[in-house]
């Protein structure tokens, strides 16, 4: 167990009688860790707990020697970008970052703000008011504020939601870049994002961790369960609804269908599982058990 790992043991979170998170145990190594799960799985709750915004019950929760029982010590090394994010509308990008830099206790505010603006490619927009930023710029601004003060732990919740493909790729690259100096926890329901940048993943559903591991490990759980089959248009229309279709692509010869199945599919060819296959397989099998 490395001293730089984040260790969570038996974390539970209740909202009244409702158990939002149940017995969450994770060990997060330095790098980028992905939290994957459908809407309502408890990802944001877990993220907010990690960001010291929500209290919860747990057996152990620490980052190296820092403990979540002392919220202030975690906040000292934390950069956080929530799912829904903006800033005071009439403040300029520069002023807003300066304000956060001071709050983070940064010693050389101007230099740090400059560094972050260049890092997220917003230097040209420094005088722009927050209300004038596009969605992509606002997300980059969000990352800029999160990385002020070189935090050791960066937590981002659904960071690419609403971004166009180009912005999304830029954003992933930025996170990859940042992961050299910090542990990043990213929560999303977009499998592609996780697959592109994360080393390790946990899949959450209904408040429980269904599976956790590296991406190849996770992929292996769906080995021999993914089938590819070519169907004519008639066959496609009459396909039984019990079959778990992952993807269907229209080709010159009809439809190419990708299926999840424990059993052999007639005319089907086994395919290499992707993280999305594993995710769907895990939700389908383990998620149902949880439910």
């Amino acid at each position, binding site marked *: 167990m490395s001293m730089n790992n984040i260790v969570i043991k038996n974390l539970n979170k209740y909202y009244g009688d409702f158990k939002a998170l149940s017995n969450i145990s994770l060990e997060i190594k330095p790098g980028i860790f992905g939290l994957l799960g459908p809407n309502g799985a408890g990802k944001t709750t877990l993220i907010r707990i990690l*960001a010291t915004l929500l209290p919860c019950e747990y057996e152990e929760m620490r980052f190296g020697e820092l403990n979540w029982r002392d919220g202030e010590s975690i*906040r000292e090394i934390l950069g956080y970008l929530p799912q829904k994010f903006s800033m*005071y509308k009439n403040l300029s990008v520069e002023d807003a970052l300066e304000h*956060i830099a001071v*709050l983070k206790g940064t010693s050389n505010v101007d230099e740090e703000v400059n560094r972050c603006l260049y890092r997220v490619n917003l230097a040209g927009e420094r005088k722009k008011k927050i209300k004038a930023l596009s969605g992509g710029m606002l997300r980059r601004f969000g990352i800029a504020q999160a990385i002020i003060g070189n935090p050791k732990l960066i937590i981002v919740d659904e960071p690419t939601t609403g971004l166009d493909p180009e912005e999304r790729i830029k954003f992933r690259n930025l996170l990859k870049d940042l992961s050299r100096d910090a542990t990043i926890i990213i929560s999303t329901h977009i499998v592609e994002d996780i697959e592109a940048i994360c080393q390790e993943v946990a899949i959450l559903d209904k408040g429980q961790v269904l599976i956790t591991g590296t991406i190849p490990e996770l992929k292996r759980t769906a080995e021999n369960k993914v089938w590819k089959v070519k169907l004519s248009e008639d066959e496609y229309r009459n396909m039984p609804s019990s079959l778990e279709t992952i993807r269907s692509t229209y080709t010159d010869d009809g439809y190419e269908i990708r299926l999840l199945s424990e059993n052999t599919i007639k005319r089907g060819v086994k395919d290499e599982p992707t993280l999305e296959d594993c995710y769907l397989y895990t939700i389908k099998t383990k998620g149902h058990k949880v439910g």
Partner: protein
Amino acid sequence: MRRIWNCYCLEVRLLMTNLIYWAANLIGIAYMIVSMAVNKNSVLYEPCQTLTSSAYLVFAGIFAFMVLGFYMVRIEKANYCDEIFYSLPKGFSSKIISKILALITGVIVFTLLFTIEIYISYAIAKVEPIIYWKSFLYIILYLTIPFIICGFIGMLLALTIKSRASYSLMIILWILLTSSNELIFDVLGGITRGRGTKLLEKMAFFFNIGQTDISLSYQNTYGFPLEMQRWYIKFFMLSLLLFVILFLVVSKNYNKTKKPKILITIIFSFIIGFNVYGFMLPTQVLKTNDVSENPGWDERDYYIQNREANYANEHNFNIKAYDIKLSTIHQIKSETKIDYIITEETDNLVFTLFHGFRVKEIKNSRNEYLDFEQKGDQFKIKFNSKLSKDQEDYIIVKYEGNSSAYYFANEQSVFLPADFPWLPIEGSYNAFTFVDTFSTTILTTPLNRNKETKYKLQYKGPKTLCTNLNKVNKDTWEGTANNGVTLVGGMMKEKKIGEDTIYYPVSINNIDKALNEYIEEGQNIRKQIEKDLEYKVDNGNKHFFVDIPKDYFLSVNLLNFKDHIIIDESYLNNVHNKISKEYLPRQIINSDVINIENYSKDITYLLGYAYEYWYNLRFTNIEIYNILEDNIENLKQLMEWDKEDLNKCKQIEKEIRIRESVKDYIDKNKDDEKKVNNFLKKWFREMKDNSNFTSDNLEVLLNEEESR
């Protein structure tokens, strides 16, 4: 500190660029400008009224600043950045503390603009410097602190209640924290069927952080209501709210660390404890409503229950001298040495002292404690042996307590007239009399002793003190008086006109001409009365213009104690800078006829009405000042209201008949001045000689005069 300062600067920047904040500020300032423009005379002649009329502004401001406090905490939520700040080190605490400071700044900016506006109006009206200072305190007590309190409440709501219920709660709290909370407590009073009314009244007073009565006009004698208790209540609320907010902040920031929580709890326990201690001190007289128009209900209830004095009146001693040590800070505390002479052998002495003052101890000249018994407005000292006739000695009486809602005495203001037993006087009387005739009311018993007595007074209380005694040094007054000592302390001013000294409230502005006119016209009226009724009007040369509590029908607006008179300040019509001389004749007559024996009889006042009618018929415009006709109309109205009470109607009918007869007699003989004067003269003398003079006696007198 750097964090808090940076947050504070940002919060102030956000506030100062907030259009709604400035719109609210401008509306407030514009309201005052418009109200000053509409009431130009008020600005010039009743400058303090201009300030107290801001009560409506305070009423609205309490809600506005509550919303502002709420908005300031919710602004991060509205801008989707709350989670960012609250996940920063000391982010939550820095933000909330800076918001508290920014809110205070916002309130100060508003009250500063308001103060400048008021001060400009004062400069135009050329008011006395003391008014600037008292107004400053008033603004702090009724604008700055309440706005900060409700701003804090708004913040607390935003911090603790996430649902929309907070909006409804803000409206409920707005009602609770203003004078409209009487609605809530009236409903509660209805539910409890009148039980616990006093407690409900106290609660209504406690929770109201604005002016006690939004429509209450400025009380010239009492001044701005700035009593200590009001400060304690507001500082209590302020510190409690601050404690709760800071505790929340600390709990959130250091959720597992006890040290900061303990530290905050200890500090605020001291602050809150101090304020609670101040609030729990024995209650002083709080002039919470316009008692000059509505008699204090406490007194009314008390004297309905206690109509008779508790001991027989034995006239067995006379007081020769008083040596008084008096403090009116918070409530009255007195140590009074009383020199007496026994006029009839006795083993006990009965004194009259208002029941609000509790006697703590009595010692004799040998420094021995004396047994005494205090019941209501009297206390009786029991001696072990007989006191023989002509024996002279002294006692020292220590007493303390609250004066009446009519006659107040606290650190704010003092008005203790000579006929109110704030000093122990010989005999057994009630301080007030409940009069259950056709005009049910309670009246001050005119305890005019008419005995030459020496006084020495050492006084600690509101400056400036005006009294019929002569000032010896900074805190000491001495003199001889026949009918007691009047004390008027607070925002008073002195003016000498010839031999006369006039004491009047500082807040009555631009009144020089009216005061001169009062002296001149007053002398003319007195001379005319002396000529018409052939008696010497003696009222000394000290005139106190104060706000005399008035009863509905039997208004007593002039009290004559021979060496000084107290006259209601409403006679000074400072808007027109003149004296309302038309009402003076009645008051001068009444003040001479009324005595303790005939005080409660309505007939006593009729002479005043009759003479005033007669005077105005000759010297002023009777169409405007027809007091006798007004009085008859009032009685008719009263009869209409009480038409189901046949006995009362019969009594009122008789009163109307006699008034009409008097008026007819004067009208009929108005060209024969001698005849009318003769009739009034006889009536006056008979009343002075016969304390049992009734309507029947007057009817007989009228018939005799008619038949001549």
